[in-house]
Structure formats: C-alpha cells, structure tokens
C-alpha cells in the first residue's frame, strides 16, 4: 500500500461521519419532523385549554379576576419581589383589572383562541396570540398553578415555533380546496416573491419547526427524568409504600373508597409504585427505540389515566399524554387515521345515517378518555 492510498483511506474514514452529520443537517432544513404529532399536540393543547377555561368559568373571577384573593396590590408586590416589573410587566399583569368587563373580554378572547387553535384556523397567528394569553393567565394565577398550568404554558411556548397546522386543520382543508380549484383553473397561482425566495422561506420554517419539536421532546424527557430523580430520593418510593400513602391522602382522592381498596392491597400498591418510578426513569432512554417506544408509551398512558381518575388530576394527566404524543412517528398516525377511516366506512354501509366521528378526533382519542 502506498502512502497516498493510506492517506486516502484515512480521509475517507474521517470524512464518513462528517458527511453523515452534513447529510443530517441538510435533512433538517428540508424535512419537517413529525408533522402529525405536531398537529395532535396542537389539537390536544387547544382542546384541553378550552375545556379548562369553560370548566373554570364559574370560578374564573376568584382565580384570575377582580375577585381573586391574590389582589392587584399583592400581585404588584409579588411581581416586584421577583424582579419581573421590567419592560414586560404590562403583559404579565394583563389580567389585573378592577373591571369585570375587561377581565371577561380577555377571558372570552382566550376561549375563542383555544377553540381556533384546536381547529387550526390561521394556525401560526392564532398560536402566537394563544401563547400570549396563556402566559398572562399563568402569571396571574401564580399563587395556585397546578402541574397542568405549568405544562400547558411550556407547550404553548414551544408550539409557537412549530408548523402545527399542516394536517387535521381548517388551514389544511382550505389549502386542499384551493389546490383543487387551481388545478381546475389550470394554474393561476399568485406568488408574492420569486420561486427561490419561497424555497428559502420554506426551509427556514422547517428549521424552526424542527427546533421546536426537538425542544418539546427534550422537555418531556426532562419532566420524566426529574420526576424519577425526585422519587428515588424518597424513602417511601424505595420501599414501595408511596402509593399507599398517596391513596390515603385525602386531598387527592376522587373516589376515597376505591383509593382505600387499592391501599389495602399492599403488594399491588408497592408493585405499581415501582412501575411508576422505573417507567419514568427509563422513559428518556426507551423512546429512542422503535419498538420499545410503544411499550413505554402504553405504560405511561395507563399510569396517567390511573393518576387522573384516582388522584383528581385529570387535566395534568391529559396534558402529559398530549406531550407524550411527540414521540409517535408519522407511520403510526397514518396507520391510525387509516384505521379510523375504515371503522367509519364500515357502519356506513350497514346504517347510512350513523353518527360519524370526524377524523380529527383520532388524535384526541387517547386524551379524551381521561380528560
């Protein structure tokens, strides 16, 4: 072997990984990752926020409104103590008002925006406005924010960067119709700028989308990872009695009799405590495997439904399930929507007038059962 050949071999060996990195980077500018998961998260977040606002509407005055025990005075002092009275304080204290009319106007706007986000109407603009209001609600309610409020804020942050309206949205339907019309009218397309600038814009949108999706995935892994880290520090999670005490704790029980029944079965409760800890600890690793991913997601789904029902935390359970959807691949969503279409088509043959669930609800099915 000549020296030249050896050098060439070395260059190839070093160039291989580099070329792979370059190819991946190129792919990230060309291909939006998991667009169906993004749509499912958008539908889940918008829908859950709508449910939340409608459910709390009878209490809204005391939670965020003029009747709140967290008075405007206390709010201003808290903002100052935390050092948030800077240039954005008008935004943080958007809901602080003495006027019921102003408060309910914001509340009504939030209801409308949640519904529009769920439906995917002008998705990008709506997701920015939705995020703007979610932040205001979060900070106004900062004396009593549940895990649900925390997670909905985080996902609303990241959703701004994500192209979540590509599928299962009113936008997608409008685009499809327009494309059909244009095909009929033989290409009367109106382009604002040149073809090449349009391609650049699309690639930039794709880069932002991929960044946002990566952040959602990282955030979900951080939640499970740190929840597991906190748990293994606790004595009762190590000896398996944590679930017993959680069930006996009367601030968190929708059905005290059912909780007491579970608490009375010590071995089962201990086993479930271990399943909870280990599934949370292993989650960040297992979601990278194509097959084990489904196993861990099913375990998570089951434990979340259990928590939501028994410990009176339905909104928190539902939003964590929505967050988990980020790990489902496009093939899964396509197979699921095909299944829904088949199921929809079958009864129609027998009973033409049977009520038909819209395809959009396929994404929500997992959420709806615990919401």
């Amino acid at each position: 072997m000549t020296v030249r050949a050896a050098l060439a071999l070395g260059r190839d060996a070093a160039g291989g990984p580099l070329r792979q990195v370059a190819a991946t980077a190129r792919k990230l500018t060309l291909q939006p990752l998991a667009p169906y998961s993004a749509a499912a998260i958008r539908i889940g977040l918008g829908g859950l926020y709508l449910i939340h606002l409608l459910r709390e509407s009878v209490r809204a005055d005391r939670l965020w409104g003029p009747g709140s025990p967290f008075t405007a005075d206390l709010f201003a002092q808290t903002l100052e103590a935390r050092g948030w009275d800077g240039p954005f304080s008008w935004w943080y204290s958007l809901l602080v008002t003495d006027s019921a009319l102003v408060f309910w106007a914001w509340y009504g706007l939030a209801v409308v925006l949640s519904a529009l986000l769920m439906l995917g109407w002008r998705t990008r603009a709506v997701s920015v406005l939705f995020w703007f209001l979610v932040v205001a609600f979060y900070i106004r309610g900062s004396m009593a924010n549940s895990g649900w409020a925390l997670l909905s804020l985080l996902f609303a942050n990241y959703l701004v960067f994500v192209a979540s309206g590509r599928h299962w949205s009113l936008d997608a339907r409008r685009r499809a119709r327009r494309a059909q019309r244009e095909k009929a009218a033989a290409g009367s397309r109106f382009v604002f700028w040149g073809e090449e600038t349009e391609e650049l814009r699309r690639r930039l949108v794709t880069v932002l989308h991929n960044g946002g999706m990566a952040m959602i995935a990282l955030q979900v892994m951080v939640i499970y990872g740190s929840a597991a880290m906190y748990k293994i520090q606790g004595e009762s999670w190590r000896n398996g009695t944590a679930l017993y005490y959680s069930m006996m704790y009367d601030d968190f029980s929708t059905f005290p009799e059912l909780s007491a029944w579970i608490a009375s079965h010590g071995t089962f409760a201990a086993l479930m405590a271990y399943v909870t800890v280990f599934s949370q600890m292993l989650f960040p690793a297992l979601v990278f495997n194509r097959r084990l991913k489904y196993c861990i997601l099913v375990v998570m789904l089951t434990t979340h439904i259990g928590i939501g029902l028994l410990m009176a935390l339905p909104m928190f359970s539902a939003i964590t399930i929505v967050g988990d959807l980020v790990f489902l691949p496009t093939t899964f969503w396509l197979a699921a929507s095909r299944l829904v279409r088949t199921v929809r088509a079958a009864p129609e043959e027998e009973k033409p007038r049977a009520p038909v669930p819209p395809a959009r609800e396929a994404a929500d099915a997992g959420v709806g059962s615990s919401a």
Partner: protein
Amino acid sequence: MAESVIPPPDPLAPRGTPLGASRRGILRWCAAFVAFVALVHSSMLLLYVATDFPLSRTYAKQVNGWMRPLFPQDWSIFAPEPSKFNQHLEVRANVDGRFGPWIDLTAHDNAAYRGELLPSIEDQLVLRRAVSQYRSNAARPDARQATGRSARYLLNVVLVRLDAIGEEPGQAVQLRLKSTRIPAPGTRPDASVTRPRYQALGYWKVRP
C-alpha cells in the same frame, strides 16, 4: 406499525430545489442561529433543573434570568414524598369578642370535588398552596416581607372561603392546622396514633 403507509406529499414542505449562493448563505446563518439558540436553551433547561450541580450554582443568576418566568420547571411537585399526615386548615371567627366554632375549610373543599371527574383547581389547590406557602415562608428566619405577603394572601383566601360558605368573619379570625397521622400500611389504626394534633397558625384582624 404498518410500514406500507406512505405519507402524502406535504404541499408546504421545501421542494428541495437548489438555492443560489446568497440565499444558501442566509439559510446557513439562520440555521446555525436556530441550532445555537436551541443548544443554549437546552443547556439552560438542564442547568435549571439540576439545582445542586456545581455549574448551576455558579451561574444561578444567568440561568434564572433565562428560564423565568416563561419556562418554570417545578417538577418536585409531581414526585413528592407523600405526606404521612392529612392536614386540614381550620378557622374560627371572633364576632364581637366571642369565638365561633372551628370550621374545617379543607373538608369543605374535599367534599366539593369528591366523585367529580373534572374538579376545579379552586377546590383542589388554592387553599393547600396558600397554607404551604405561608408555612414555608414563616419557617425562614429572614423573610419578613415574604411572610407578610403570604400571610395576607392566606387571610384573603380564608375570607373568600368564609364568604362562600356563608359564615361571618367577624372582627378577627384564628387559624390552626389539624394534622392526622396516616397509619403505617398493614397496622391496625390505634386511637393514640390517629388522634389529630393541632398547630396554631395565626390570629389576624379582619380589615373591613
């Protein structure tokens, strides 16, 4: 999953047509910027979560400035070492120099959401959070101002509750915490174990 399913073409995705040199430059710089921000944010997120990590302590101020208030991460609330006590907030009102009976506000809250699949956070969270915030602030030796604020907030919450259940707050209210030990698993609950203990929280004048 069915591998045979081919995704339909996305009409808004980049077509992959080659870009000119200037636009390729713009794309590269913007993509590098997005990747950089994502990297910074991920690092901040991990440092913020790992509070005891030495680097997190050194850069606590920068990390806090980046993460708060838009990206709070209080995950300890999801993984609590469950309490071995059931704690209820009780209140009695002083009306014209005479104390009324103790009212268990937590029991009122819990009764309100029992059997409810979609409970309101007002029944579930507001009172408990107000009490725990007040207690953790009161335990700190040098937090006069914070204690003042959390005390006023707790009092406001109690007054709203009294109003909601139609009780007169009078001129002053007294608060106490009732703690009942949860018997250890597998033991027979003993009267000496499950007898509630009381802790006085405070006595506040009610401003009209």
